[in-house]
């Protein structure tokens, strides 16, 4: 037997969990005493179930292989991008905030950016993504006037000796040091320019196990990583990996 449109509306909303408590209680009271209404409820419920089954069957017929091929073609035709927001998006936000903070001239030690989740490789991946945001202008026209101060803060936080002299490497211009954190561990970024190319030296005191220096490539950058004394290190830049490895070895010696 047919129910009114209004009742259908209520039953539908009830089945969809969209009635508030009062409405739900009222309807349930009626359902208890009106067999008509109960029958209608079950019929409507069955309809939704059948609908889901039908749509699930439909999903199986999607031409996924064709669509994947077309997607691949579209990606192949797309020029390089700096960063994709649906990757580790937390890092991208934090990086953008870090750049603004630096530009505003915040002093060493008063700001630290949070970068995300645990995992000893995760922090390196976050740095890779952070790097994608840099341009040569990101570090200002000359070494930061607060560089020594910032390095002193980093030294303290990382428990490692860091000063301007120690961090000089041939061919790179030391520009800025930024105190950050990753998953609660202090992270320091020491940024250089190689001509116009940003190169970043990152150190985090995260208790990583010792690891020998290895060089690899990620996201278009050459990356050197190692770990020593409970600290993880990485040097990253869009420069030839041979050169990066030499620079990394020099820095490893000076900060070991």
């Amino acid at each position, binding site marked *: 037997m047919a129910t009114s449109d209004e009742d259908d509306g209520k039953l539908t909303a009830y089945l969809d969990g969209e009635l508030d408590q009062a409405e739900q209680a009222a309807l349930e009271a009626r359902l208890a005493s009106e067999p008509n209404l109960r029958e209608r409820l079950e019929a409507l419920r069955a309809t939704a179930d059948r609908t889901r089954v039908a749509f699930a069957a439909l999903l199986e017929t999607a031409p996924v292989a064709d*669509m994947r091929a077309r997607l691949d073609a579209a990606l192949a035709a797309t020029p390089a991008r700096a960063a994709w927001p649906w990757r580790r998006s937390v890092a991208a936000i934090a990086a953008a905030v870090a750049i603004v903070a630096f530009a505003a001239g915040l002093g060493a030690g008063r700001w630290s950016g949070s970068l995300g989740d645990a995992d000893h490789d995760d922090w390196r991946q976050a740095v890779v993504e952070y790097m994608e945001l840099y341009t040569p202008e990101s570090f200002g026209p000359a070494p930061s006037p607060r560089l020594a101060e910032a390095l002193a803060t980093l030294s303290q936080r990382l428990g490692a000796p860091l000063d301007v002299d120690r961090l000089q490497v041939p061919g790179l211009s030391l520009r800025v040091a930024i105190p950050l954190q990753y998953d609660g561990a202090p992270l320091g970024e020491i940024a250089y320019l190689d001509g116009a190319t940003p190169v970043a030296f990152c150190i985090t005191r995260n208790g990583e196990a010792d690891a020998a220096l290895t060089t690899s490539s990620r996201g278009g950058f050459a990356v050197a990583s190692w770990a020593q004394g409970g600290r993880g290190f990485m040097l990253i830049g869009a420069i030839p990996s041979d050169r990066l490895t030499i620079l990394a070895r020099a820095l490893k010696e000076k900060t070991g």
Partner: protein
Amino acid sequence: MSNEVREEVRGGLEAHLARLWRYALSLSGARDVAEDLVQATCVRAIERADQFQPGTRLDRWLFSILRSIWLNESRARRVRAGQGVLDAGEALSVDGAHEIETNISAAQVLRAIGALPSAQRETVLLVYVEGYSYREAAELLGAPIGTVMSRLAAARATLTRTHETKDA
């Protein structure tokens, strides 16, 4: 674009291709149009990656892009009311010998769904199949919640009546 970035982007979009296609099919009623819509959605998603809010649902964002492309597309094509009937037969059968009970009744349901007004059909897909809440559906559709409710109720009533008539 580096290979690594390409892999991640592809992974993000690939995970939702089939559902996007199903949504596109429910909007357009035609398989080839649905594929084109999905492709256009992927291209626009790649172009507008900057606009994606990190931490939000990628699938919802893709659905809203698809919908907006469809709205422009259907205006451009001057789609008349009455077009957009789902070809459930084509959708399900590959080889008639393999049809089993479930598929046959699913085909019937899809035919009935195809006969619904497209606004109801779309709302049914979003809420009952894709799990949008009434409020999320209302937001995507740019309609009041009451409209969502009445479309669902009307669709359910029609589909129930159709089913009961068949059984009778």
